[in-house]
């Protein structure tokens, strides 16, 4: 994975930059000592590391504006950072960039239950948004697995999803407005507490732009009343194909569960050894969850179980208690941790049409044998968002490269099956160089034109999302201007 060489002109500016930033930020909000900037050298894609030139931790929209204005004047690249949980390298710095962390901006600004909104500073963690409203029985729907740690800023940057987005949608469907600072320091308000824009849907393109268009400092989010109850059911099958067909039939039958999760044998065994969730031994496991009152849940589950029975399940297990439900989810939610116990792993995130599930799983199995690397599959089956976990040994020379090549093959397979490279993690640096497999040069040019409008100098998170060869002339223009 290549990153552009640092710009020596920018590196030489460090003392002046520190001095200027300290004029607008408190002493402890400008971090320039190498022993401390190391804390920002990577995100959750830990295979790639590089300490930034500096890190700054502003506490207000005004401070963010001041920082960006100064960096803009000095021609210094800025890499925005939420909680640093990106699996795609979205917050990976370069040596000539300033990390702008929003972690100190974590306040709730407004809760309004009548209008079903909450306004928060963007450094607030996902789970603590729900935490702020759950006493009134409300919640914020998008639930990425990292929700304990990940920030709303990062959720907006990557348009994060989660297990329950089959019913509730992803971040973009639950985001009503933002306060955002452009690279030149201009503060813009986009959207608000009302629905849908009165002009172009700028909010729609800001969400998922991976910190390349501006720095979001505040967000207005939709909150929902909690359902009366929820209950999962476990279904065990003796092949991936049958489990896939069952998913398709459930969806066709008009029942819309809140979540349909899929795990294959390798993942089931790993989770069982790690979390002791009591999962049955089988080739493929589905966790299907429905919501409502007890009677509504009974009714929906009876319809779902009737469909499942037509697919000769090895076992159908309806949760009988809150404790059992928690245990069923514990296994699934600890899947990544469980796989980490076996070996190092790389987590992929491609999406495929649900109908292609059996073919794609079969092909992944074949590739696994060709590359000699094990792969476990755990994913959101209802919406086709796969998370193949490729196991490798980071200490074994050549294993990481082999794993990257295998991962690239799987992602190309997803695209060829009618899907896409990334369903909820983002492109970052990880999938950057595969973008031309999914999009043509004019397709990417259209996307880059958006960045040209928001950030004409390409200073915000510049070496991400687009293949370096494709964005080179734009980034080179910025360096020449220095």
């Amino acid at each position, binding site marked *: 994975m290549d990153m552009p060489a640092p710009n020596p002109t920018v590196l030489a500016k460090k003392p002046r930059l520190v001095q200027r930033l300290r004029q607008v930020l408190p002493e402890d909000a400008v971090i320039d000592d190498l022993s401390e900037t190391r804390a920002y050298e990577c995100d959750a894609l830990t295979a790639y590391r590089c300490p930034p030139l500096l890190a700054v931790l502003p506490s207000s929209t005004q401070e963010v504006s001041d920082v960006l204005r100064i960096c803009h004047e000095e021609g210094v690249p800025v890499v925005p950072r939420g909680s640093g949980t990106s699996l795609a390298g979205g917050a990976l710095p370069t040596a000539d960039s300033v990390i702008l962390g929003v972690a100190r901006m974590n306040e709730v600004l407004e809760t309004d239950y009548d209008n079903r909104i909450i306004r928060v500073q963007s450094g607030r963690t996902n789970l603590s948004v729900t935490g702020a409203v759950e006493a009134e029985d409300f919640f914020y729907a998008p639930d990425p697995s990292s929700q304990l740690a990940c920030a709303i800023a990062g959720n907006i940057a990557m348009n994060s999803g989660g297990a329950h987005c089959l019913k509730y949608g992803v971040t973009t469907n639950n985001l009503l407005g933002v306060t955002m600072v452009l690279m030149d320091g201009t503060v813009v308000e986009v959207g608000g507490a009302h*629905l*849908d824009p009165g002009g*172009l849907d*700028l909010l729609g393109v800001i969400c998922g*732009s991976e910190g390349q268009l501006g720095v979001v400092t505040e967000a207005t989010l939709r909150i929902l009343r909690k359902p009366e109850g929820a209950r999962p059911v476990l279904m065990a099958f003796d092949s991936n194909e049958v489990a896939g067909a069952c998913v*398709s039939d459930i969806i066709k039958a008009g029942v819309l569960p809140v979540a349909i999760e899929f795990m294959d044998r390798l993942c089931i065994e790993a989770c069982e050894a790690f979390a002791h969730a009591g999962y049955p031994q089988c080739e493929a496991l589905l966790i299907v969850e429905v919501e409502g009152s007890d009677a509504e849940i009974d009714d929906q589950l009876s319809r779902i179980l009737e469909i499942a029975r037509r697919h000769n399940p090895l076992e159908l297990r309806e949760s009988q208690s809150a404790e059992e439900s928690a245990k069923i989810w514990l296994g699934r939610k600890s899947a990544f941790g469980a796989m980490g116990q076996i070996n190092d792993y790389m987590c992929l995130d491609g*999406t495929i049409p649900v109908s292609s599930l059996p073919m794609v799983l079969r092909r992944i199995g074949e590739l696994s044998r060709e590359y000699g690397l094990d792969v476990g599959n755990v994913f959101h089956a209802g919406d086709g968002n796969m998370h193949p976990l490729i196991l490798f040994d980071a200490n074994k020379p050549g294993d990481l490269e082999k794993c990257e090549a295998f991962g690239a093959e799987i992602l190309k397979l997803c695209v060829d099956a009618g899907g896409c490279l990334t369903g909820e993690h983002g492109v970052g640096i990880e999938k950057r160089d595969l*973008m031309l497999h999914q999009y043509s040069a004019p397709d990417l040019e*259209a996307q880059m034109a958006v960045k040209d409008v928001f950030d004409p100098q390409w200073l915000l998170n510049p070496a991400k999302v687009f293949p370096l060869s494709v964005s080179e002339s734009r980034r080179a223009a910025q360096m020449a201007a220095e």
Partner: protein
Amino acid sequence: MRPETEAELAEIVAGLDAPVRILGGGTRGVPGPQAEVNVAGLSGITLYEPGALTLVARAGTPVAEIEAALAAEGQRLAFEPMDHRGLMGTEGVPTIGGVVAGNISGPRRIQAGAARDFLLGVRYVDGLGQVISNGGRVMKNVTGYDLVKLMAGSWGTLGVLSEVSLKVLPKAETLATLTLAVPDAETAVQALSAGLGSPYEVTGAAYDPEAGRALLRIEGFAASVDYRATALTGLLAPFGMVTRLESDPWAAIRDVAPFHNRTGDVWRISVKPGDAPELAARCEAEALLFDWGGGLIWALMPEGVDLRARLGAFSGHATLIRGKRDQRSMFQPEPAPVAALSRGLRQRFDPKGLFNPGLMG
């Protein structure tokens, strides 16, 4: 000009040297230059997978054709797109491209989301005649920038849609409409907010001041609908006597039927629901209709009145849907830095200023 294929469309656009009006069925009354590019010839469903909740269609495909195909599989467009013909006094065949270009959503938007939330992918021809693809046909996709959302509601100003890909949903087995008499908008919005803030999944929340009634819709399997109707009736009791309506009023609300065959300008105002009663009073309208729990106000106004001047500064926006657009722009003017971004995007997507110029600022 009426292309039959995407390639023909691209060729036509590449050869344009003067502004054009982009249209499909031409039912939504969007003004524009004399010269037209009509995409109604780009028609047909190209892919429909009920088990994957996905449908792909060419932009000129009639909405009715899509709805019929979905109904045959017990599915539907959950965002409930409005039919503008009654309100605008237009004829013609509404197309899916028009629905997407206008981000046209009905009462269920409050719960299920807008057209833009169900749009998975687009293909369009930009101002240079290039075919651009963004998004795809899968439900979760964060690969690159989301130009899909940007194209939804861009009213043809960024490109000419040639194909759209949509998420569809199962059709509900049945529905119930609860109604209660309310004295004013204030009480109505409070009652609707109580319903929308309940766990009973209200999929429609409207208030018709002329009839003096608030309306709430719940949908799903029959037993579940009965259960929730009873629960909501209890919850709403403090606001008035709740009864269950036998007829289905939601298509009429969606299409703003109370304003049909009445003269005057029609404005569509999107606000925070709680702000709606006070803003509606400022309109001094001839008639009003509230949807989205109060968050959407339809106002029938005397011809020529600048409603935005009456509303003053407010959080939200007012769109002139029907009426002479002379001094009054169709869309709410944006604050300067936002307007600069929108203008910049239009210049990049349509550098020659060919598509519906001036429509969005």
